[in-house]
């Protein structure tokens, strides 16, 4: 095991070398009683030790760069390195969000372009880039919808409908706005059950939240009908854009009948979100909701002819506050660095974003085909069954490992752990919860045919393998299967455990 950073006992009096303070007596300006008298017990290590420490830690971490990462619903695609280079520019890294507009015209121009692009791609009328994650986008949009109903005096709408296949953030976000959640069951084929929806909607319906393609990876063909049902009950339709990677240029939530949508820029538009973040979760809305959007948005006005402006396109970019704005959901203007990366990503495709979605869908269908059609000579214990029967899937798909569990006792989790031994990240496990022993695969467009072929082959090898090996997997990882119950029971959340005691 790598030592923890607290095991270093390097230089006794180390500390990053810094220039001296400008004046010596400044601490005396703070009343004695307010002064800290015991410094935090932080590591005392030199740069050489820390570079090695973190390098070694990184070597015990799996990323897209180190292998195939088919984590369904998470769109773990390649992160173009250009984007990382761009955000090192002091014109983004060393910018303060409160600088006057005249000092940040370039950034505002990028914001404007991204607002426009996202609106176009989704069929929405207005976009804010402020929310910093998909979940925060959901929360923000539901807040807007809440204000929309309130303004209309529609104060009794206190319910939000979500399918039972919804991502956990959907109900959690709605509930943070004070809504009650109505969960409607999926039809037997995993798709939306219009009858169940019809009986769920009513005068108390504030909104329905749904994603399409669904969390099962299939396109809901009756989405327009669903929208119609919700709208006629006076509710708003909210599109969870986590699966946007499947449909760019092919259809859009506007056409499907949605009123609001969030984008996970860190999924569709790529974004290193190592360890789980940062993200960026802009939202787009139709006109009727736009005046509630968080403040500020970027707008622009044409300059007098002859004046090309700071960015050279003849426009003056400026912040603008929507008329009935809900205010702020993040203190500044969102994750600007993530927006700039996403902008660079978008520019690489431009109107060919459609190609990106095509390849995401091609890869998913291809992988599904490969996985469901093993070499007949193999002695597979039991084949998985599709989470949702469908001619084609979109950018991801689900498989139920139940047959394998029935025959061998090997669970979806065991298969997931065994995949780690083969050098893969495991697929998403047990989500959506409506598919028993669910594994969810999303290859993304940036994986080659060779990788997909090999993955399917290795998957089949696991299905054919001695179940004992799978049940006790992983075997080749830096640590063996980790005891999560132990962790929750012992709650060792820092070093040493019980300091500062309270």
């Amino acid at each position, binding site marked *: *095991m790598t030592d923890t950073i607290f095991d270093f006992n390097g230089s006794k009096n180390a500390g990053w070398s810094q220039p001296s303070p400008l004046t010596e007596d400044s601490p005396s*300006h703070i009343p004695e009683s307010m002064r800290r008298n015991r410094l935090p017990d932080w590591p005392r290590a030199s740069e050489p030790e820390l570079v090695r420490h973190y390098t070694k830690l990184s*070597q015990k971490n799996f990323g897209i760069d180190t292998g195939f990462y088919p984590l369904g619903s998470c769109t773990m695609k390649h992160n173009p390195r250009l984007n990382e280079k761009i955000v090192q520019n002091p014109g983004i890294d060393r910018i303060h969000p409160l600088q*006057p507009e005249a000092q940040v015209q370039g950034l505002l121009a990028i914001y404007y372009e991204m607002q426009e692009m996202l609106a176009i791609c989704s069929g929405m009328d207005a976009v804010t880039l402020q929310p910093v994650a998909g979940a925060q986008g959901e929360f923000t949009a539901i807040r807007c919808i809440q204000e929309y109903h309130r303004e209309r005096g529609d104060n009794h709408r206190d319910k939000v409908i979500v399918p039972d296949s919804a991502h956990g953030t959907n109900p959690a976000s709605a509930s943070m706005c004070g809504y009650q959640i109505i969960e409607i069951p999926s039809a037997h084929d995993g798709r939306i059950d219009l009858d169940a929806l019809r009986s769920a909607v009513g005068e108390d319906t504030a909104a329905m939240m749904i994603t399409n393609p669904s969390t099962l990876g299939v396109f809901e063909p009756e989405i327009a009908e669903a929208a119609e049902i919700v709208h006629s009950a006076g509710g708003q339709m909210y599109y969870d854009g986590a699966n946007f990677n499947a449909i760019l240029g092919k259809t859009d939530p506007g056409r499907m009948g949605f009123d609001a949508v969030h984008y996970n820029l860190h999924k569709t538009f790529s974004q290193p979100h190592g360890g789980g973040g940062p993200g960026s979760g802009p939202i787009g809305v139709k006109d009727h909701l736009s005046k509630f959007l968080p403040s500020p948005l970027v707008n622009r006005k044409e300059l007098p002819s002859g004046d090309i402006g700071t960015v050279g396109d003849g426009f003056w970019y400026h912040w603008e506050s929507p008329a009935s704005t809900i205010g702020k959901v993040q203190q500044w203007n969102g994750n600007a660095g993530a927006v700039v990366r996403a902008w660079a990503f978008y520019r690489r495709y431009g109107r060919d974003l459609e190609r990106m979605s095509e390849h995401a869908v091609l890869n998913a269908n291809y992988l599904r085909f490969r996985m469901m059609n093993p070499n007949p000579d193999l002695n597979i214990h039991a084949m998985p069954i599709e989470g949702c029967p469908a001619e084609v899937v979109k950018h991801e798909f689900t498989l139920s490992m139940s047959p394998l569990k029935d025959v061998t006792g090997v669970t979806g989790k065991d298969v997931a752990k065994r995949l780690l031994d083969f050098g893969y990240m495991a697929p998403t496990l047990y989500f959506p919860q409506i598919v028993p022993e669910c594994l969810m695969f999303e290859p993304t467009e940036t994986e080659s045919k060779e990788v997909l072929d090999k993955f399917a082959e290795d998957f089949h090898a696991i299905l054919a393998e001695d179940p004992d090996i799978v049940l006790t997997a992983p075997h080749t990882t830096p640590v063996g299967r980790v005891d999560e119950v132990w962790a929750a029971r012992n709650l060792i959340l820092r070093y040493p455990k019980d300091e500062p005691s309270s």
Partner: protein
Amino acid sequence: MDQLPNLGREQEMLDIMGVSSMKDLFEDIPVEIRSEGTLPLPPPQTEEEILRDAERLLGANVNLDSRPSFISAGLARNFVPSMVPMIATRGEFLTSYTPYQPEVSQGMLQAMWEFQTMISELVGLPISNVSMYDASTSAAEAITCAVRVKSKKVDMPNTVYISELVPPHRMSVIENYTQGVGIDIRKIPHDEDGFLNLNIAAEASGSCAIYVEQPNAFGILDEGLLRLREVVGDKTAIIVGVDVTSLGIVEPPGNWGADIVVGEGQPFGIGPTAGGPIYGIFACKKDFLRLMPGRIVGQSIDTEGKTAYTLTLSTREQHIRRHRATSNICSNETLIALMGAMHMALLGPVGLETLSTRVLSSTRMAIDELSSVEGLELAFPKSPVFREFAVKVPGKSSEALSHIFELGVIGGFDLGQWWPDKGSWILIGCDERTSESDISLLKKSLTSWVEESS
């Protein structure tokens, strides 16, 4: 389109599947809702072209390092050691996701466990999560968390008292996070020195929580807060927002009774980045553990008893608890927190103390220099401050700021944007990069404004 490995091989793959064309893969989208034609967007660009445009656009921004700059207001124009971004962007860190599979995520998990320890040490509380979106959501979720924990036990359920000297943008976030669930927010005023009115604060006793900041929106360090526990009694949660950098020299709130400490982590690990990605810190006492937001890493063991790390207490989270979750957080700010951990580890205790002292000393020097300018007036001359202080200028602060920008100085923040009655106040922020010559340029340019406007 050097990003698509299967470009040009579509047919080969379709043939294997027995699908005849790419179009067939989208036949499941009903015709009525299909998009027509090409997206109305410009053509793709190459890396060279994008970089050129990026440099042009970002180059049009005035970056804080390009001239003396005194704008802070909640973020720090910090110095991040070179090692931090270089090592944190190693692909294994950069391109990983939430460590759902601990067996292949020990690196990030251990780093976050160490991060939790460093934050816990910093603020003097035993529990820390692995980051919130930013200081504002951290404050907001601390409040909703306290309400969850306290509502059933106090006289005033769903009620929280908040210092009125919280930056309005942060306050707005707090309002958004609290109003849907119906939390009643009451403001506590300050006296003319910018200190919290403890008499009114006493009314918070019996409510779920009181939220204060140390330093507050004017940079003021309020000694009275040390008596807050006394004032509000044992039942009401004390939540304190901090400037993390100050804690090398200022007593951490955990030591004077805070139940939850929140704040902006950005000064450790990353530049101001136009406001994000940054990360909020969130630390608390044990009583809040099971109802707190965000991801938490715990030590554990593997099948052979070897030490290992894993996400723990996930039953609080949305992917398990769904609408009863303690927060909707899914994506968070781990990668930035990792940078924070590296920066804190490099600093070490002594480095932190030096850093705090540097920020404090440049603040003091700026105060001393500006107080000698006839026509400028310190808004709170008697109060101790850290990093920031407010000055009153002749005329409108927005105009004063434009004037000194012309003279090459980014001169602070126009407080009129936050409080219309403070249209002639400027919030001046100092930091470890502030030099004597920066301060003398600021002084010179403000003096010129005073002369100009008299």
